[in-house]
């Protein structure tokens, strides 16, 4: 630390104030409030009249069938999306990791769905999944028909709706994770790859024994981020199926939103939101731990 940096310390409050004030008002304060409300019987219309209710809301969540369904759906969605999207993104990254312009173009193609906003894609895929009706059908049924697959009512079948939304989400997000993997691939030691090639290792062996181990942290990071994003699912089921059919696509966030604005039970909604936060925090902590072990 030099003298001028100490002298500049006097200006620090002015530099910090705008951002810190905004964070305090719009992030920290709402968080503290949600924490307090989650232990009260606060309702939507008059939260200021909240009375302390202990852990009632949390106990209530444990017996709340709708919340549990939403929790289960969200977990299932993550279980469908995370492995498929991570593996797909990894192989796409290996596939396009070449210098020629054609591969750069292909990289761009895989990234296009990332740039399009989620509400637009949710609406678009609803039309793509359109069931067959009087000689008309969505693009997906038409495309699968070419291969002899009978048309399905994708979003109206409780068994298919969540997987259909998961498929669309993988298609949307794979390009972004591919870019993260591409960045990680640049750090794989070239001489290790060269040595493996000289030793006659096959492409698959090089991936397994050289690339995957040296990209361990990137893989952990991608898995964590993809999991957190999967838990945050809301827009797709909300627009495509409204959580139906038969609550099969009801998401955690939608249940928090409905508990707030439909049941007007603010206390329980805040408790659910904090359970969700604990989940995300736990995942982040796990990622840091796993990544740290690598360095030590």
């Amino acid at each position, binding site marked *: 630390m030099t003298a001028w*940096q100490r002298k*500049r310390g006097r200006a*620090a409050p002015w*530099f910090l104030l705008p*951002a*810190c004030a*905004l964070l305090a008002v719009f*992030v920290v304060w709402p968080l503290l409030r949600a924490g307090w409300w989650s232990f009260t019987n606060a309702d939507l219309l008059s939260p200021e009249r909240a009375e302390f209710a202990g852990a009632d809301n949390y106990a209530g969540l444990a017996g709340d069938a709708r919340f549990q369904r939403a929790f289960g759906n969200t977990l299932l969605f993550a279980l469908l999306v995370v492995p498929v999207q991570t593996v797909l993104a990894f192989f796409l990254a290996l596939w396009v990791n070449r210098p020629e312009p054609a591969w750069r173009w292909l990289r761009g193609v895989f990234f296009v769905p990332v740039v399009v906003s989620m509400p637009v894609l949710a609406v678009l895929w609803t039309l793509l999944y359109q069931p067959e009706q009087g000689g008309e059908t969505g693009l997906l049924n038409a495309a699968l028909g070419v291969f002899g697959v009978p048309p399905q009512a994708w979003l109206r079948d409780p068994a298919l709706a969540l997987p259909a939304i998961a498929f669309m989400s993988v298609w949307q997000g794979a390009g972004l994770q591919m870019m993260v993997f591409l960045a990680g691939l640049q750090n794989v030691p070239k001489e290790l790859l060269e040595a493996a090639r000289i030793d006659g290792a096959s492409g698959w062996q090089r991936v397994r024994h050289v690339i995957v181990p040296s990209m361990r942290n990137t893989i952990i990071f991608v898995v964590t981020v993809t999991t957190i994003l999967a838990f945050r699912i809301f827009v797709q089921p909300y627009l495509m199926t409204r959580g139906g059919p038969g609550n099969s696509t009801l998401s955690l966030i939608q249940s928090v939103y409905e508990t707030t604005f439909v049941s007007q039970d603010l206390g329980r909604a805040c408790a659910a939101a904090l359970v969700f936060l604990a989940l995300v925090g736990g995942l982040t902590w796990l990622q840091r731990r796993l990544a740290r072990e690598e360095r030590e």
Partner: protein
Amino acid sequence: MKKTAAWILSGAAALVFLAPLLWMVLASLREESRIFQMSPGGWLGAEGWTLGNYADAWRRAALGRALVNTVAQVAAICGAGLFVNALAAYAFARFEFRGREWLFAGVVMLVILPVEVLAVPMFFTARDLGLTGGYAAAMGGLTVPFMAKAFNIYFLRQHFLSVPVALEEAAVMDGAGAWRQFWNVALPSIKPALATVVVLDLLAHWGDFLWPLMIATREETRTVQISLANLFTQPPVQWGDILACAVLATLPVIVFFRWFQRYIVATDTGTGIK
């Protein structure tokens, strides 16, 4: 032989990723009755093309207004946000003051907070501050809560730290104050990082849905995503109009993205997280 297989595979993959969006654009130009006619002959003929969906959607969903709102919202978040976050990041990177490490650790802790967790209590905070009323108030409600971002402060601080300190020291020798040192010297030297932050926020907020759904309830404050959702859910449902609206909601963000792409740094987020 092997090369041909690679090309075929690449082509197939590109088709899977592009086909839905190509279909969106083409179908938005089709007459209502022909959108879901999937017979090969019925789709690429000379008949049934129209621009009517665009005119309809523009009128029915008041898209002009919605697009202006969305551009204003994203510009305000990206612009003002960039400014306040860069200011704080710079102080954390270069100034020495009591409690610096402690305060910065507090900011970093906020990085993992998903907006969905905060949406409900934030709604009350916005309401208490009068950010939900008329047009100006709601535009404030759409933007002000998202200007300061913990991740951006963290990210920009990293980039300020990686800039050699010599330039700024020279400015100090020349008698530049803290402000000039930040504005004229440090800020221009991290342009790629600034562009990256702008692009990430642009993509995130252009697609905002949950928050505008809660806060921009009046017709004149609707963002383009809310207009789209309304066309999609409120009868009479016109597929052509919905598709046209989807295209119009997508074009600006593609244009902005292409424009900013040149300045982006590769964010190597997967490594070195302490």
